[in-house]
Structure formats: C-alpha cells, structure tokens
C-alpha cells in the first residue's frame, strides 16, 4: 500500500500530464484518442458504479449516453441553448429515465432489471430511428454547430479539437472524482454491502432500493452529460450512438479492470480506448477476441485485474498473521 500523500501526488501529476498533452503535441490523433478515453472512462466508470459496486448488470448505459447526446443536440440546434445547459439537461433527462426504469424493475429483482435495461437500450434505438418528428430518424442531426460554453466571466468557443480534448478530459476528471468520492464514502460501503449480501445489508438498516437508484441515477447523469458533449465533437448525432458495440466495449472495460475496482476500470478504459487503435490491431477479429476475453474472465478471472491485485494485497496482508501461530 502506498501512503495517501504519495497517491494524491501521483494523481495530481497524472491529471496535470493529461492536460499538458495538447501543449506537447499538436497531433490530432493523439487528442482523438484522449477524447475517446475520456468518454469511455466516464461510461465504464458509471457502469462500474452500478455493476461493480452495487451488483446490477446494466445494458442501459448506452441508452443514457444517447439520450444525453440527442437532448443536448436538439436543445442547442433547435432552441439555441448554450452547450452547458443542453448537456446538463441531457444528463438530467437520462437520470430521470434511469430512475423510472430502475424503480419499476428493481422492485422485482436484479434479473428483471438486467433484462429491462437491455430492452430499454433497444427501445432507444427504435425511437431514434423511427420517431422522425422528434429525432429526425435515421439521417440523424448532421452539421452540429461549433458550440459555445458560457462559464462565469468567460465564454469559450470550442472550435479546435484541443478545445474538445480539454472539455471532455475536464469533465472526465470531475466525473471520476465524483465516482471516487462516492465509492470511498459511506455510500460506497453500503453499495458494496448490498452487492455482497442484500438481506444482511437490509438487516443493518440499509435500504437497498434507494442506494441502487442513487447509483443508477448518478451513472445515467454522467453518461448523459458526456453524450451531450461528445456529439458536438463528432458534429453529428444519429441512431448509431445506441450501437450495441459500445455496450460490449464498456462491459469489457469493467470486466478486465475488475468490477468494483476504481483504478482497475480506469486503467482498463485507458488501455482499451487507445491500444487497439495504436497497434492497428486487426479489426476483423477484435470482437471475437473481446468475446473470448469475456468468457475467460468469467471462467477463471472473475475479479478482473483489479480483483487480482486486491486478492494479492489481501494475501500479503494476511500472511504474517497466519505464519505466527
């Protein structure tokens, strides 16, 4: 275990390093990978909160992401809202929808929630494609304008890729900080207790439903906001934002990083968002490999990298006590 101050320093250095990247290199591809990492880290971090900490397998994350994207794009283009209001509204709507599907299915069981979350993601795709008067259908909304962010005393026109890098990376850092605060606080301990043994947690006076809903709403909000920001980087939002491929990628990040391991999932997001592209990894078989990794993880490595590190730490911690009778 490294001391707390050292860990804090490392994190500060890491964040400073991330923000220094656009000053070091003008290479837009490096920035694109950074944006992709920032986006995926928020999505997988939220999924980790819901699945890794609270134990609810959710397929709805991509739905929240898309709802945020569509809401923000429509509010900014049709109503002329500023970006921050559009994205916040997208996040809020996603959280609200998350509460509705969570409240309705979680009263029954975790199983019902998993299946409802899956159907929800498919319904989102159908609405995006076929409710043309609302979402403009399969054509999507192309040519999103260069957005302007109004911060107190400063308005920021996001015209260059570096601007989006700063924006999304900044939001990702805030989102990760929020997730970290939640999982290390009493809230996080209660969530873990619910995952390990719901009945026991209940007997300790923890109300599982409200913690589950909190985790779900928070992850939905974060996913919605990141969706609302990301679509302006792409300059288009269309139904492929609900692609099941995103769900698979997020799940792999959480599984490899280790469900319930904050740093593990963050690391896995960084590696999986960048490495396959950097290595020009064969796209043909990437999903086959991801699937195989998923199978292997479930059979032999259910805790992921994070779980493995934790087990190792636990063993080391236990060893001296066991050695001295």
């Amino acid at each position, binding site marked *: 275990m490294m001391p707390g101050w050292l860990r804090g320093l490392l994190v500060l250095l890491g964040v400073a390093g991330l923000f220094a990247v656009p000053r070091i*290199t003008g*290479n*837009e*591809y*490096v*920035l*694109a*990978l950074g944006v*992709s990492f920032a986006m995926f880290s928020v999505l997988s971090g939220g999924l980790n909160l819901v699945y890794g900490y609270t134990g609810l397998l959710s397929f709805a994350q991509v739905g929240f992401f898309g709802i945020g994207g569509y809401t923000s794009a429509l509010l900014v283009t049709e109503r002329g809202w500023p970006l921050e209001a559009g994205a916040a509204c997208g996040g809020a709507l996603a959280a609200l929808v998350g509460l509705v599907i969570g409240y309705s299915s979680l009263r029954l069981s975790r199983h019902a929630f998993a299946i409802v979350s899956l159907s929800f993601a498919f319904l989102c795709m*159908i609405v995006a*494609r*076929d409710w*043309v008067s609302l979402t403009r*259908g*399969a*054509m*999507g909304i*192309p*040519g999103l304008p260069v957005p302007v962010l109004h911060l107190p005393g400063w308005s920021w026109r996001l015209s260059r*890729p570096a601007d989006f890098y700063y924006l999304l990376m900044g939001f990702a850092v805030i989102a990760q900080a929020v997730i970290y605060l939640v999982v290390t606080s009493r809230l996080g301990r209660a969530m873990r207790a619910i995952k390990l043994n719901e009945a026991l947690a209940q007997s300790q006076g923890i109300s599982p439903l409200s913690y589950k809903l909190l985790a779900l709403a928070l992850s939905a909000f974060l996913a919605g906001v990141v969706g609302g920001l*990301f679509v302006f*980087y*792409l*300059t*288009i939002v*269309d139904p*492929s*934002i609900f*692609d099941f*491929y995103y769900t698979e990628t997020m799940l792999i990040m959480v599984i490899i990083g280790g469900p319930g391991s904050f740093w593990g999932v963050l690391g896995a997001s960084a590696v999986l968002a960048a*490495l396959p*592209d*950097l*290595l020009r990894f064969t*796209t*043909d078989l*990437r*999903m086959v490999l991801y699937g195989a990794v998923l199978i292997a993880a479930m059979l032999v490595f259910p805790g992921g990298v994070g779980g493995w590190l934790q087990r190792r730490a636990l063993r080391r911690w236990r060893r001296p006590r066991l050695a001295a009778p």
Partner: protein
Amino acid sequence: MRRMRLAVAVAALAALAHSGFAQSQEGPILIGASIPLTGGVSMFGQHSRWGAELAAAEANAKGGVLGRKIEIDFQDNRCNPAEAVKSVTQMLAEKKYVAIFDGLCSSAALAIMPLVERAGIPFVVANASATSIAERSGVGGNKWTFKVNPTDASMLDALVGWLDKEGKAGNIAFLGEDSDFGRAGSTGLENALKKRNLKLAGVDFFQKGNADFTPVLTKIKARKPGLLALYAVDADFQNAIRQWYGLGGGVPLTGRVLVDQVPKEIMESGFLDGTTSVQPYDPSVDTPGNKAFVEAFRKLHNVPPILVSFESYEAMKVLIDAIRRAGKADPAAIRDALVTTKMPSMLGTVIDFDDHNLAHNNAIILTIKGGKVVVLGMSKT
C-alpha cells in the same frame, strides 16, 4: 511478453509523435479510405474496397501517376460516425495521405466532412446517399468534399418521370428499411410525385434485420397498389422478395430495386414482369467500358460487381484523374483539379461537378420483361 507489448505501444506512440513530416516524394501516393469493414454492412465495405482497388491497380498497371504508384489504406468505420472520425483523424494526423475516400455510410461521410475541411484535404464520396452531403458542399460551404454518385432525389425524379409517362406513377406503395437509404427513398419519391400532383399510396418502414415481412406484405397486397417501391438490401431484400412471391403479391416493383439480386427462379417465373427500377448502375449496361470492368472484377473476385463496387471504382478513377491533372501529390492542388474534372464515365456521360461539388452521372432505368432485365434507357440526373 507483457514488456514487449508495452515496448511496441511506446514505439507506436513515438512513431505517431514524429510522423508529421513523413510525406515522401519517392514512395507511393497514399489515399486514405474509411469504410465499414466490420459490422452489419461490411459486405458493402468489401465491395467498395474491391472497386477502389481495381481502379488503383489499373492506374498502376499503366505506370502509376506522376511516376509513382497509387496505394489505398483502408480503415474500418463500422458505419458509425464516431469510428469514422477516429479513423480519419488518425489518417489526417499522419499527414501522408493526399485525399480521403468514401465513408460509405451517409452519417460517416457527414462526420468526416468537417475534418477534411479543417485539414485542407479533398474528400471524395463514392457511395453515401444523403442529399445533405451535397447541400453542404461547394457553394454550400465545404470546399473539400466531392460527391460522385447521384443523389436519390434526382434519380427518383427521373424514375417518376418515366413512370408518369406510362401512367403508372399514381398508385405506388412504399416499403423500405428505416435507415438513411430507406428514408431518402421515401422522401425522394414523395417529392418527385408532389411535383406531378401525385402521392404515395402508403409508406411502411421496417427495421434492418427483420426476417419476416409477411404481415406488412399482406397489408400492402390488400391495398392493391399498382407498384411496390421496395427499399431493402442484402438479407432483408432476399426475405422480402421471396415472401412477396410466396404471398403472390402480383404487383411489380419499383424504386431502387436490386434487379441483379432477384433469385433466378422468381425472375424467370415472370412474376416481377413490369418492374421498373432506377439505379446509378447495373452490371448489364451495354458499353465497352462496363463490359471490361465487369470482366476484370469477376476475374479477381469470382462475383459480379454490385452498385457499390462500381461507384467506388469510378469515384477512385475520378480522384486518380485529378491527381494526374494536379501534376503534384498535393492536397490543395488535387482539390483544384477535382473542381475542373471532366472524365468520361463508362455509362457514356462525362463526369463533372456542379457548384455543390456534385456529379450528375446517368441514372439507369431498368425494367423486367419476360423474366429478363432490360435497360430501358439512361437519364441524366
């Protein structure tokens, strides 16, 4: 092993950081293509690749361009704008490509457009069908995007004109996939009919991957339309056409029907006689250029070319021709050369771009007569 992989990653990063000046004057001229190589439409991506590669191979066989070989790098975009942005940003960052090619799906092409504008590199669209691409190009704003294939709107206008002459445009039912392809088809038909004070007799959409069409086909059959405009591709098309036959639809098709993919048995039965279709291309077009193309393509891949292979082939030829006329492998010079394109098409016209950087090649009107596909004629779009 793990250390080695890390070393490779670090090396790749380092290579990326230093790749800014890699543009060599000696090696091949590089073109970057972003197309779906995985996912649901990867079959079209494959055909686009084959078409473009054939055009490049032909140019290279004649000694290349400006004394250098043409080489195309294909990157996967899954038909998803986010992946398209990533793949094209990667190619643009390497600064060794002289042009970006295709995108294939409209949403991918639309997402690529701002990138090429910022980077100042020409982007040649071969297959994407959305009208908004040309609306935003040339005088519409984006000076770097060029669309070689005709838009649906202009092709369908030609088709409806043809049908109207024969008095058959009044009672068309529409069934299409709920994608940009299907939506462009229904609006294109509606607009073309509106000009002649006519309307569609019914509009239905289905989700891609839907296997059973019998409910909606039964509904359409009961409406007794004069023609059915069917906008389906791939497995959807095969399912729909077989089930329409099974239900004894008794109504010929229209729209952008893939007449070359109708099963032989159905075609020969005469069931589809009277079908009138419009396509930017058909393998049976009787010109020497097309015959040579079909033969060369078949020899390489054992399958006949489809629309996508043709569009990518000709669009790549347009691009190569522009590079030759530009006289140097420089993106801005190539863009200027593209503007003044005057290249003969194998369809018998001359490809040139209007002020929206849109080419107006011939559309082909086909019909099925006595169980055989007959080219009725060509119509400038």
